[in-house]
Structure formats: structure tokens, C-alpha cells
């Protein structure tokens, strides 16, 4: 296989990591919403935690994207 083609395939495989970030963000927002529906008075207090969880979950997926970009552009 040519190196260029292998690079493309590797970068594509590394980008699969973003699927996990999608699942994680969905779980965080879904659970926040169901919790907020049950107890709306407690929802406002947990909003910073929601944002923190969102950012942390998104970042783990982006680590995979960084690997993809390193494969594409750094080698």
C-alpha cells in the first residue's frame, strides 16, 4: 500500500473516536434533562456541572481528532 493511502485510512480510523464523544455528550445532556424534569428547582444549581461534563466529554473525542490530524499533517 502506498504511504499516502495508509495515512488517509489511519486518519479515518482515528476519527472514529469522535463517536464516543457523541455518545458521552448525549448521555450527559439526556440525564441532565431527565433530572431537571424530575426536580426543576435543583436544575439551576447543577448547570455548571453540566457544562463541565460536556466540555470534558467533548475533549476526549477531540484527542482522537488530534491523532488524526497529526497522522495527516505531521508525518
Amino acid at each position, binding site marked *: 500500500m502506498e504511504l499516502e493511502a495508509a495515512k488517509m485510512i489511519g486518519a479515518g480510523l482515528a476519527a472514529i473516536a469522535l463517536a464516543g464523544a457523541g455518545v458521552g455528550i448525549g448521555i450527559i445532556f439526556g440525564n441532565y434533562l431527565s433530572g431537571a424534569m424530575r426536580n426543576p428547582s435543583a436544575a439551576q444549581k447543577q448547570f455548571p456541572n453540566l457544562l*463541565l461534563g460536556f*466540555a470534558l466529554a*467533548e475533549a476526549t473525542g*477531540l484527542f482522537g481528532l*488530534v491523532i488524526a490530524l497529526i497522522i495527516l499533517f505531521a508525518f
Partner: protein
Amino acid sequence: MATNPMQQFSVHKIGPEIKIAGIDLSFTNASLFMVISAASIALFLFLGTKEKRIIPDKIQLISEMLYSFVAKMISDTAGSKAKPYFPFIFSLFMFVLLCNMIGMLPYAFTVTSHIIVTLILALFIFIAVTVIGFMKHGFKYLSIFVPSGVPKVLLPLITVIEIISYLSRPVSLSVRLFANMMAGHTMLKVFGGFVISLGILGGWLPLGFSVALTGLEILVAFLQAYVFAILTCIYLNDALNLHH
């Protein structure tokens, strides 16, 4: 014309080349935008606190909101012992926020989309927190690697995991900010490229996406500055209040 979505991250010299002891210290567009962010923070807060009115005008109101926002964040996550570190965390938060936000302007350069900038910030925080921990608690600070209430059989394993997670803090802190900013800006440019390549008929759909993504990116720019600051507070809390 920039056809590559990674073109926007290129660093180039502005003005003459300055070399001191073999190290290239030339003024680049990255340093220019760092100066712009730092200067706009200073100017904004200077104007906001110049006239201390009882009924604040808009600019004073925003400065007060920023102050109370960061002060509340520190007292909520790190307790009252972290009060002396307020100036550091406030300047950290403002610098990252302004760098992210100025990067959202068209043709601007995003300083935080370079790993070296975020890594230096994160390493500074990591070393500072470690030094603070050892200064406050001496060698007892090492007990953060040994969580209480763990079965004796698991303790060696947990300790190794704790040490690795402690050492990976600067990496995760810096890569999180860098990856978010870089991925977002690359995505914006890729969608911008779709608008051109699909032409006047099909280009409206990616244009709409681009507008929505810009909104999302402004949210992410704020959120990442917030997360950066709040994680600093959490690390500081570990170092100041030693009970795991």
C-alpha cells in the same frame, strides 16, 4: 488565497528578525494577538473600574460580573483558602477567554489553537500547584496519591494509577483547550470551503451550517476558558485541602 484549512494556523514574522543566543525571538502574528488580548483586558478593566459609581454603567457592570463570576467559581470549588490565588485565576481565565474570543473574529489568529501556548500555561499551573502543595503540607502532600478507604490489596495499583493521573494533568489540560480550538476553527474553514465549491445553488446549506457552527464555537470558546479555570481551581483545591 488560503485553500488549505490548516493555513490559518501558520505563524509568520511581523517586522525584523530578532535572534538572541541562537533562539528566534522575532515578533510574530501569535505574539501580536497575545499583546492585543492582554491589552484589551487591561483597557477594559481600567475603564470598568475608573469611576466607581454606586449605580454602575454598562462597562462597570460587566467588570463586576466577571469579578463575581470568578470569585464565586473559586469559593465554590476550592473553598476560602484559595482566596489569595484569585488574581492568578482571574487573569488566567480572562486571558484564555479573550484569546479564544478574539480568535473568533474573521482574519484573526487564535493563539490558543497552538499546543505550545496552552502547554506552557498548563505546565505553569501544574508546577505551581505542586509547589503550593509541598509548601503547605510538606511531605504529607504525597498522601494525595494514597486515597483513603481503599482495600489493602488494591492499594499499590490505585497508587500507581493516581500518580499517572496526576502526571497527565498538564497534558490533558493543554490538549483539551488546544484540540477544541483547533478542531473548531478547522471545521469552520472546511464548511467555508464547501460554500465556495458548491457555488450559488448548493452553497446555502453549508452557509447555514457555518452560521450555526460559529454560534457553537463562541459557546465553546467561553466554555473552554471556564473549564480551564475551573480545573485549575480543582487542582488547587487538591493541593490546599488535603483530604482525598
